[in-house]
């Protein structure tokens, strides 16, 4: 499988760098490559490139739940499923990109489904317009069904792929910052030669390395809370740290619309917030530990 991972990552790189995200989506949606895109390593590698280019596409849904379906994520800070009486009133959650034919709601007792014509959707631009988030509401009760994901667990797998994407965001922001500090001169020297600048970027890089190592070391079959609270939280924290460092070292340039950094800033904040933000995850992890479940403890093994 690993040659396919590199191959697909290279394809994603080539197409996304050229802004041909819809083409990538179409190629991966081909039923002939279903097995390939359902491989967590392939999916992870593609999402990482996706993060590095900060593009908008339906890749996330396609990779998590397959063609024709959307994953419904909880709205951060809000409880989903509150009925209020009015038509299309019950908040179901958030979808990345437009809703597909069938919406998959990950719940603790397994996935539930809603057909698209049972939901009312409203595009939201918010913090990261390019992310293409859509709020979905419904009055119908979702039905039980089976979802085909790589791991059989939608929420954990969604968290894992978000982690991959966040590592990509971290890498993309860092690459932008590194390029900037090598080129930009002040006081007659590149600003990248100032120790404060160098160390700030190194710290961000080290965070990204930690998150990357974790994703490589803990597989998709680890428990859903490990995917969300450990892998995604550590990738989210790394991405936040990388964009913060990048914002500082890019100076005024980083605050222009023309310079791509703001896209990474938006993306890092938005993706971190989905499926439990990294700060909330820390508290959650600590609380679980105090109740006797110390995660992930020794799940990474020597080989």
């Amino acid at each position, binding site marked *: 499988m690993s040659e396919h991972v590199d191959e697909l990552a290279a394809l994603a790189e080539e197409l996304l760098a050229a802004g041909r995200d819809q083409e990538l989506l179409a190629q991966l949606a081909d039923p002939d490559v279903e097995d390939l895109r359902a491989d967590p390593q392939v999916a992870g590698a593609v999402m990482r490139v996706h993060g590095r280019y900060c593009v908008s596409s339906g890749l996330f849904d396609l990779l998590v739940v397959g063609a024709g379906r959307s994953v419904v994520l909880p709205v951060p800070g809000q409880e989903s499923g509150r009925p209020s009486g009015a038509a299309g009133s019950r908040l179901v959650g958030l979808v990345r990109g437009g809703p597909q034919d069938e919406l998959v709601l990950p719940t603790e007792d397994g996935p539930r489904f809603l057909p698209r014509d049972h939901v009312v959707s409203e595009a939201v631009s918010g913090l990261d317009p390019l992310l293409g988030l859509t709020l979905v509401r419904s009055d119908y009760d979702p039905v039980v069904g089976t979802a085909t994901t790589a791991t059989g667990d939608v929420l954990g797998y969604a968290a894992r792929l978000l982690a991959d994407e966040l590592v990509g965001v971290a890498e993309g922001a860092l690459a932008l910052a590194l390029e900037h500090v090598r080129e930009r001169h002040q006081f007659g020297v590149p600003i990248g030669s100032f120790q404060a600048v160098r160390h700030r970027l190194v710290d961000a890089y080290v965070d990204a390395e930690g998150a990357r190592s974790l994703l490589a070391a803990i597989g998709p079959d680890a428990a859903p809370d490990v995917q969300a609270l450990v892998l995604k939280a550590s990738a989210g924290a790394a991405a936040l740290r990388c964009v913060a460092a990048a914002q500082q070292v890019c100076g005024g340039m980083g605050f222009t619309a023309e310079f791509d950094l703001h896209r990474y800033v938006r993306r890092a904040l938005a993706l971190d917030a989905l499926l439990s933000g990294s700060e909330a995850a*820390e508290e959650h992890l600590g609380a679980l530990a105090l109740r006797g479940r110390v995660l992930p403890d020794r799940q*990474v*093994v*020597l*080989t």
Partner: protein
Amino acid sequence: MTATALPPRPVTEHAAQLAAWLQEHATELAPWRHRATQGIAAAVEHDRGLLASLHDAGWSRYGWPAETGGLGGPVALRAVLYDELAAADLEVPEAFVILETLGPLLAHLAPHLAAVHLPRFLRGDELWGQGFSEPEAGSDLAHLRTRAVSDGTGFRVTGQKVWTTLGQFASFAAVLARTGAADSAHRGLTMLWVDLAAPGVTVRPIAAASGRDEFAEMFFDDVPVPAEGVIGEVGGGWAAAMYLLQYERGMYAWQRQAVLHRRLRQLAALVGDDAPSGTDVAALGRAQLLCAGLRARSATTVARLSDGENPGPEISVDKVLLGRCEQAVTDAWRRLRGTDMLLGADDSAITGREEWFYSRASTIFGGAADIQRDILADRVLDLPRGAR
């Protein structure tokens, strides 16, 4: 408690067998679940028993070459030992830190010395010191002043070393000394194996801030070192030091992550669910996340070392991650066990305070964190070099 030494097995199988052995001997090993808190000398003495048991049963000899008293097998088998000791709720003897710093150096560059000294160390009969730092040469190690002058057959060493971990208990020390001209910087250094019982050596413990006097200073006044005492090549001291660093930073980080994961388990069990505040609980979660990242990173580093690959400057990532973990874990302890930190007088509080101090030094020894960041900036991120 002697078990027959078994031939090396694949890493995971080896780990399972060691875990089973540790469980089987849990009662005999129980004294080493806590470290002796009646001062450092008592702790060093106490650890000898565990070292002897692990040596006699063969477990600490795996991953070391047969020519040096080991039982062979990949270096990863050493990493398994540290990990399984901590997993079995035992204190990992501090001697293993020194072993992983100087053992690979001797085994690689001075097998004749390793053949004699490594078995003694593994049995718990001998400790060594790492004599690099000097009062005037810390981060700027290349400008050290201790001199070694050829006396025809060997060398005579004169100078001062400082901060030598467990130096007051050491029988020998690896001393980095200048054999070249005074201005030869890193080019004129040689690594020497110095007998601390030789005439002209004075070793004095340094009273430590933590109350645990874990390091010493060493004075050398025309101390004789025979020709066999040269580790590597004359003038090759810097290369020897660089060789050692991959273990001092890499394998050491693995060893410490094993200990830190145990500390997290201990802390969680000690505090239990008695509703501490959100920020204190988050501090624990943060430490768990950091330690998870370190363990994942470090496992790949151990695999590289085990394959005989030198990870080079990237090893500084492990070192920076480790410093953060050490401090995050002891900060979580300080927050969740604030009364222990402030007032505690029992063994657990004393150990907790000592570890808190130790964690602060983690970003100093083995190359200060800022030096690690410079290495990464220069050699991994390829940033323009600037004035130091």
